[in-house]
């Protein structure tokens, strides 16, 4: 593998975010929650988007889907998917691409399914919308999809309502609906957070299997580094709406370059590791309303110096081919 290319996707880029900026209007003031985010995701590749709660992960996903809540809007940048800028499409064109080009699975399988609609109809709905299938064809196809996502007795499950199914099964249904129209990109927003640990592993295996079979790219969003390490080829770490580090998953996890990534990994509990209190990162994620001079992580960073508080660090190549937005990293490698 060419080490120089670690900051770039391994295959031809499918999704390219270029300076994506999302602003939310709070009490009449516009606040930037995703700030100039730029990364690329190759065809069939998995990128893990990692960050704390409130770091802008979900806003990034919803911005790609163009499903931001009413108070939020894309304030700048481009979202190139297979060569077209999603941010510039009209609503009707974007709707036809949802499900077909890019689909999403959600954190809460309990609330992401319509409680008064059978699971078969919820999957068939996608097929009717995108493939123009008849009801009967869609039903047969929905059954095949249930089988593909590992649901036993798919014929019997088609006519069940969501409340009769377990959380793991409901997440499988959500996945079946998301992949029904064979999207090139699947966004998985905390796909296992609401599930039992054993079920989490099953869902991870299912996603890997489906990816191998369908060749879709996956953007997996989580604060759970264990999940990310199992799924992702590359990892992008965001902090307070900005990209702080991106690189091959194994490299980033083994030798993080950015102080924030280091802190994040240190705070992950390990079996067999030292007992006692887990490491924490001092301080809190800054409120987005706070003024953004310098590195946003500087107030919590033990290594911060004057320049961190006055100048925003640019993404720079770090040792091992990764890229990190830190003055220290830039100084280390040097121009």
């Amino acid at each position: 593998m060419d080490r120089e290319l670690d900051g770039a996707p391994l295959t031809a880029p499918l999704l390219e975010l270029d300076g994506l900026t999302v602003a939310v209007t709070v009490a009449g003031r516009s606040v930037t929650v995703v700030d100039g985010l730029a990364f690329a995701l190759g065809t069939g590749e998995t990128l893990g988007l990692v960050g704390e709660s409130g770091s802008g992960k979900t806003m990034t996903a919803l911005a790609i889907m163009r499903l931001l809540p009413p108070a939020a809007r894309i304030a700048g940048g481009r979202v190139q998917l297979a060569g077209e800028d999603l941010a510039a499409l009209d609503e009707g064109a974007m709707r036809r691409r949802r499900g077909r080009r890019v689909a999403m699975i959600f954190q809460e399988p309990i609330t992401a399914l319509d409680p008064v609609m059978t699971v078969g109809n919820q999957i068939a709905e996608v097929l009717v919308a995108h493939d123009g299938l008849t009801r009967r064809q869609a039903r047969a196809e929905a059954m095949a999809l249930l089988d593909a996502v590992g649901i036993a007795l798919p014929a019997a499950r088609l006519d069940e309502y969501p409340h009769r199914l377990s959380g793991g099964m409901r997440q499988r249904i959500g996945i079946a609906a998301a992949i029904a129209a064979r999207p090139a990109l699947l966004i998985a927003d905390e796909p296992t957070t609401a599930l039992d640990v054993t079920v989490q592993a099953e869902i991870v295996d299912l996603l890997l299997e489906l990816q191998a079979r369908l060749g879709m790219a996956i953007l997996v969003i989580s604060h759970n580094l264990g999940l990310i390490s199992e799924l992702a080829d590359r990892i992008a770490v965001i902090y307070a709406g900005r990209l702080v580090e991106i690189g091959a998953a194994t490299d980033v996890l083994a030798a993080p370059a950015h102080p924030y990534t280091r802190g994040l990994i240190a705070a992950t509990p390990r079996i067999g590791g030292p007992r006692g209190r887990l490491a924490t990162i001092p301080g809190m994620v800054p409120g987005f309303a706070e003024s953004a001079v310098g590195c946003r992580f500087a107030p919590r960073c033990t290594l911060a110096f004057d320049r961190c508080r006055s100048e925003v660090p640019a993404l720079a190549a770090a040792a091992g081919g990764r890229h990190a937005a830190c003055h220290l990293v830039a100084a280390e490698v040097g121009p």
Partner: protein
Amino acid sequence: MSGRLAAAFGGHRLALVSAALLVSITLAVAAAPLLAAILGVDPDEVNLLARFQGPSLAHPLGTDELGRDVALRLLYGGRVSLAVGLAAAVLAAAFGTAVGLVAGYRGGLVDAALMRLTDGVIALPLLPLLIVLAAIDPAKLPGLGWLVAGEDASLYRIVAIVVLVGWTTIARLVRGAALSLRGRDYVLAAESYGASALRIMVVHILPGVTTPIIVATTLAVGNVILFESVLSFLGLGIQPPTPSWGNMLTNAQELIYDAPALVIWPGAAIFLTVIACNFLGDGLQDALDPRARRD
């Protein structure tokens, strides 16, 4: 109806009695032409020699000031009143639901515009407006003549008037419910699969707002029957000789001392039907909405 629903509804005795009463009234007015044929009496037949008769076998409720059979006129009037009440309530509910769904789901400017329109309609003084609208002869409106030609013109007109002013309650109810459902994950999920706005409104949001719609529509049937009575009483509603409970009251008002029965029968019919609709609406509310149930 599921067992739980039936049990909850059955526990509401007044609602049960009201439902039975409404069914009986509906069956009776539906059978009016049949009864007329059996009795061999024409409800519009004037017989000046048999005015103000008391109850008899031939005329169970006696005859009115023109010698017409009161029982049959009551049944025929009920057909008009109930049909107008049901048609206007259902049409108003359909229109209000559409407005509420679009406003609640679309939000933003569309919501603001539709809700200001709704507020505007609510702010109009109802009775003067109804009187002005009722004074319009739809047969003379360009393009509408064919629709309202003939004897039933006043009937269509009153339905149209009630729909025009009556959709606001349901529009606001549905808008509020749609607003809260719009933020649900499953709506977002459906959007993420590429479902159209129309499909999301009809398939994913509408089922969640049926309870308030059903309850409000049931209550509205009673209100519309009252409206119809008021307008007919003022001479602006259903035009004689077509009987309605409202215009039967109008006819009887000057005879209230001479023939009080002519006032009592249509008045009682209106009173019972409206109150039955209200109790039924309350009962449905309790049965369909678990939060409102009292134990």
